[in-house]
């Protein structure tokens, strides 16, 4: 049996790519190693009655055009917006930012009246810049090194939009591309209590500090999130993040794709520079006209393919592509709502994301630990309690607490394989940190799952535990993702393509790499078909 396309990996991008290919009439097979679909966008009931969004836990960047084109709401996608961004401080004070601008202004004014008034100006500017950058996220990467007329034409479009930007915004954009998150925020704000929770957006998933150059740009990605036309909006997927993957899978099946779980691929068979077949761990060999990898570049090329089948400079480029995961995840089942001493009660401040990021110095110290090979004793935490707005993920009155934790470097002292020895210590550091703000929190815990970068690699196939299939730092984005000259989903091997977060526009629950890869594959198919047709001798008109 042979397919038009086999997609290796049933993560959300692999499924998206498969759905688009199937929608275009291709016969598609998706192979997923695990028993559940979704890769890092997965929900699992690990404690009876409690559904964890095991890895990825909020939705924002999922492209609205992907949602519409695949009709995801029809297949079960439901997104509930986060209401607030709450940050408690050790001195007992707290700051909460809301959708309501006046309420936010009053909250910030408690720390700095100046900041309170500047805050909306900053938001406006970032949103304008996000609007400039957004078309680049929704289209294939620019090709600044190419003199191909189409590449030049595409860049001309960007240049025109750049020209139309207000000079002030142009300066802002250049600043953003080069500055650190803290440098940028220092230009605008004076209060540490506001800057610290804002700065962390620049470092999520990277092995950089908030003072590392280039981190300002990543802040912008957080203003690009969009729900219903509202920028900067984040949401929970009802039933956990896995429901996003399930909806995409349902769409793919609806369009005719076949999806197999527990079908681990051992290698991609390459002969004469051409990807011929995928070989499963059980020995089955499946052939297809096109093979698409939804695994990260390391796994795809150094794992399934093997460097020996690749041009040396490409293989070297893949090796240099920085993975180095820096974060972990702690999922908790609790028997009551956490109560923050800085703002007691079950108020709406808990219905969004909660940042334990009390000062820039705190973040720098957390980074210091990581630089020298240990996890942060007092890490940055991004905490959400999805069960507050989506009661379906926990029994009545009980809750799920999801803690994203940074820094937890993959390369821990003694080697990554030492992580299992440190796993519970990382879990304790997270719980202890949170308990400093929520007295009695420890006693409320019914179940705890700790995922170190090592676990992310072992369980979810994320090389070095990098949640984005490769760091989202400027030098690894756009035309350099994953390797310069190979940023358009094509690989040096004929018939082999890539479609996941290691390609443009990168990581996050976006669906864009999968969708753009499918478009590139379909366009290449069309090109081949046209060339074949042109070569075929003319035999008169069809009957």
């Amino acid at each position: 049996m042979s397919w038009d396309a086999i997609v290796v990996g049933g993560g959300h991008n692999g499924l998206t790519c498969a759905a688009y290919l199937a929608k275009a009439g291709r016969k598609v097979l998706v192979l997923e190693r695990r028993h559940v679909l979704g890769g890092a966008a997965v929900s699992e009931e690990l404690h009876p009655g409690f559904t964890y969004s095991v890895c990825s836990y909020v939705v924002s960047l999922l492209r609205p055009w992907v949602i519409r084109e695949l009709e995801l709401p029809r297949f079960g996608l439901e997104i509930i917006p986060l209401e607030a961004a709450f940050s408690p401080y050790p001195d007992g004070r707290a700051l909460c930012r809301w959708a309501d601008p006046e309420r936010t202004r009053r909250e910030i004014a408690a720390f700095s009246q100046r900041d309170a008034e500047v805050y909306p100006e900053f938001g406006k500017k970032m949103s304008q810049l996000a609007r400039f950058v957004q078309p680049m996220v929704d289209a294939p990467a620019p090709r600044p090194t190419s003199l191909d007329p189409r590449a030049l034409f595409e860049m001309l479009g960007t240049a025109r939009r750049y020209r139309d930007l207000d000079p002030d915004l142009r300066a802002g954009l250049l600043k953003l591309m080069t500055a650190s998150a803290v440098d940028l925020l220092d230009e605008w704000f004076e209060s540490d209590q506001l800057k610290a929770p804002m700065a962390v957006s620049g470092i999520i998933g990277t092995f950089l500090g908030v003072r590392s150059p280039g981190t300002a740009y990543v802040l912008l990605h957080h203003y690009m999130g969009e729900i219903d036309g509202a920028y900067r909006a984040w949401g929970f997927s009802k039933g956990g993040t896995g429901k996003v993957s399930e909806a995409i899978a349902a769409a793919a099946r609806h369009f005719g794709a076949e999806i197999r779980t527990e079908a681990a691929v051992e290698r991609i068979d390459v002969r004469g520079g051409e990807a011929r077949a995928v070989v499963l761990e059980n020995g089955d060999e499946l052939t297809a006209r096109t093979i698409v990898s939804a695994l990260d570049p390391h796994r795809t090329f150094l794992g399934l393919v093997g460097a020996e089948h690749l041009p040396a400079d490409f293989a070297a480029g893949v090796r240099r592509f920085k993975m180095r995961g820096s974060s972990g995840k702690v999922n908790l089942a609790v028997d009551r709502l956490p109560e923050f001493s800085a703002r007691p009660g079950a108020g709406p401040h808990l219905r969004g994301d909660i940042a334990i990021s009390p000062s820039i110095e705190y973040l720098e110290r957390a980074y210091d630990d990581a630089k020298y090979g240990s996890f942060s004793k007092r890490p940055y935490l991004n905490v959400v309690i999805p069960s507050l707005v989506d009661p379906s993920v926990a029994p009545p009155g009980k809750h799920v607490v999801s803690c994203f934790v940074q820094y937890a470097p993959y390369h821990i002292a003694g080697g990554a394989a030492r992580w299992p020895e440190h796993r519970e210590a990382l879990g304790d550091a997270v719980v202890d940190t949170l308990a400093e703000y929520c007295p009695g929190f420890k006693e409320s815990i019914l179940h705890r799952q700790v995922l170190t970068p090592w676990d992310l690699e072992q369980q979810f196939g994320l090389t070095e535990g990098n949640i984005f299939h490769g760091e989202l730092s400027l030098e690894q984005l756009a035309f350099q993702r994953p390797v310069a000259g190979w940023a358009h989903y094509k690989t040096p091997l004929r018939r082999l393509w890539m479609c996941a977060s290691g390609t443009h526009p990168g990581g996050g629950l976006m669906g864009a790499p999968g969708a753009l890869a499918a478009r590139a594959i379909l366009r290449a198919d069309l090109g081949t078909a046209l060339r074949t047709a042109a070569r075929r001798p003319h035999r008169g008109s069809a009957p």
Partner: protein
Amino acid sequence: MPIPTPFHARTSALCTSLAWKEWAGYHAVRSYDTYPEREYFAFRHAAGLLDVTPLYKYDLRGPDAGRLLAYVTVKDVTQMKPGRVTYLCWCDADGKVLDDGTITRWDDAHYRLTSADPSFAWLARHARGFDVEIEDVSEKLGALALQGPSSRAVLVDVAGAEVAGLRFFGAQHAHIAGVPVDVTRTGYTGDLGYEVWTPAEHALAVWDALAEAGRPYGLQPAGLDALDMTRIEAGFILGGVDYTSARRALIEDQKSSPYEIGLGWCVQLEREPFLGQAALRREARAGSRHALVGLDIDWDALRALFDEKGLPPLVLAHAWRASIPVYLGAVQVGYATSGSWSPTLKKNLALATLEAAHAAPGTELAIEWTVEHRRRTVGATVAERPFFDPERKRK
């Protein structure tokens, strides 16, 4: 000046936005917080508790109660079983719609009618010769809509397991906090949900019990703005917005038949005489001039219009009510009367009245849309209603 409902002590303490509106002479909460978002999502993912006391409520008792209602409405309600509710409309003698609402049959000789407009005089006028007693219980009963996927769990918690089996459009007597209440599995959100009818003097005890039981289920107090979004998703029309009552119409053109507002399905023509029967028979034979439909407005086209101006696409955070022209080419073939962005379906929806010839589902039309002060048009496709119809609603 509007007056408070029996739940006012609770609703006013919670309504931090002070966003109220007048509804049938009562103070009604539009949205408890600045934005209705939380309340909307509670209806769809947890449960919302909404004060619907301002509905008019009439008890009809006596051997002829059913016959009277069958005569004045478009349905033969004498065929209903006790413990059932039905949704319907009623017309004047010309077959033009006066109002829409529900009728519950509590027992053989006891029915309850709810309506948007006062209906006592009209019922009394037609009751001559029928053995029936009509009681206006509008102010005697407080009413709460408990709507959303968690609503059954909350209700069972306060009213006991016997309400768990209540079927879609079923009615049952129950006790909440020791108060005898009536429960119907009805609502205006198009979701799993109930309405609870309580003696006004015990209204607060019932509210408190529901609010307390609802806490672990994510229950939120909800206002009319969130309700409006959900009823558009459900494709439900609203009297006074999507159609004009024949009683209030100033000219003939403002009146509509049930067929013209999408309520043809509840008209039972072949039976004993009823108000408007002859006119409705004629219309059923000859066809109607208008049809009320759902519209799915092309989001990409709308986005492109905003893009031209360098703006992000802007949608209101709540539903809208206005008369907006709908075109086929350059010709106006109808008008939208209300609409909303649907956060659940990710669609821009509207309800519209169209010339019947252009009302088939799938018909591609265009709707006027004002972008940055300029009137433009975007594509809109006639869509089946309800737009949103979850399985749990009936299950």
